[in-house]
């Protein structure tokens, strides 16, 4: 009888330790709480270029993550990128004239959407659109522009 009991106790410890390890993985290693956190609403924004923004990228206000990019598609008429973003329900007082921009975390880091709040009395709702947008900076374009300007100014000096 006592050996059966010892076996049962050790199996109980085994199962408890396994479930505890799963919990550690869920809570401590991945951050489960930031994922499904109650109500959220969707807004969209059109960008000329999103280069490198991905689904599930962060949406931030003042550097704090308030939501995630849900879907990115191309508008078939204007050929602009339409970015659908899920924003947490508790941030429901973002003015409608806020602007959205695509920025990079650090020099080589991930792209994210930054929202600069405006001053209008109305707030963004489900399916409303952020009209003021600033596209992501494409490094190649910037460099080519710089080189172009550089050679132009060299030409002027020579003349």
């Amino acid at each position, binding site marked *: 009888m006592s050996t059966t009991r010892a076996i049962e106790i050790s199996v109980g410890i085994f*199962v408890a330790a396994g479930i505890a390890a*799963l919990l550690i993985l869920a809570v*401590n*290693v*991945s*951050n489960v709480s930031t994922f499904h956190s109650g109500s959220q609403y969707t807004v969209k924004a059109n960008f000329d270029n999103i280069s490198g923004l991905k689904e599930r990228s962060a949406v931030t206000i003042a550097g704090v993550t308030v939501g995630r990019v849900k879907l990115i598609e191309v508008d078939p008429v204007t050929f602009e990128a339409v970015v659908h973003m899920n924003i947490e329900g508790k941030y429901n007082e973002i003015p409608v004239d806020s602007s959205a921009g695509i920025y990079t975390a650090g020099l080589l880091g991930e792209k994210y959407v930054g929202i600069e709040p405006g001053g209008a009395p109305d707030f963004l709702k489900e399916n409303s659109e952020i009209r003021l947008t600033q596209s992501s900076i494409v490094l190649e374009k910037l460099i080519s522009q710089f080189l172009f300007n550089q050679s132009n100014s060299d030409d002027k000096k020579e003349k």
Partner: protein
Amino acid sequence: MFDWFAKIGRSSIDFFARFGREMILFIQTVIGFASLIPRPGLIIAQMYSVGVRSMLIILVSGFFVGMVLGLQGYNTLVDFGAEESLGVVVALSLVRELGPVVTALLYAGRAGSALMAEIGLMKATEQLSGLEMMAVNPVNRILAPRLLAGIISMPLLVAMFSAVGVFGGYLVGVDMLGVDSGAYWSQMQAKVDYNDDIVNGVIKSFAFGIVTTWIAVYEGYSCIPTSEGVSRATTRTVVYSALTVLGLDFLLTALMLD
């Protein structure tokens, strides 16, 4: 000429017959799970021999694998000034791949071979026939509790392996090599996704639990009941389990990453 075709035909018929017998036995065993409901003691006894007694080797290996990942990851990342991402490297490689695969390989060697030898010797000493004589179904009584115990134990072992590995990586990365402790955890939490990474790791571990335990149980049940047959079946158990786990891992990863 025709001998040659006959040979191909015979071996393919043999292959499919063997495969069919194995599938029928598998389905019978799964149906046999129902007969375990009134007797949970059988499963507990098997979980003790399969799970609890594998725990030590899993914990120790998980710890060392995590520490090695910490060392190797740090040495590569530090060249790019990205050593803060060490936590991500350690956690993702453990949760997605190394945890399920290494645990399954260790499990096949530690528990699978023991399961197979036990059932094989039961067959060699005609205990299985004895059970049938007493109108006890050996599939329900012997195979079903072992398979179920393996399927339950494997995800628990994998979770322990990964969790201990993450702490091993922390010990080396943060305490030995000086990565910032906050960055280790926060980057890990930002990059490791619950649904994409943790749940997929658990799905993998269930699949490996089914496959490795089933191979062991089947090889034991179908082995030639002589000492040579048992020894060959033990070798086959470990080899087949290892190959199937690695192949299945590639398939599952390809499906999950699509």
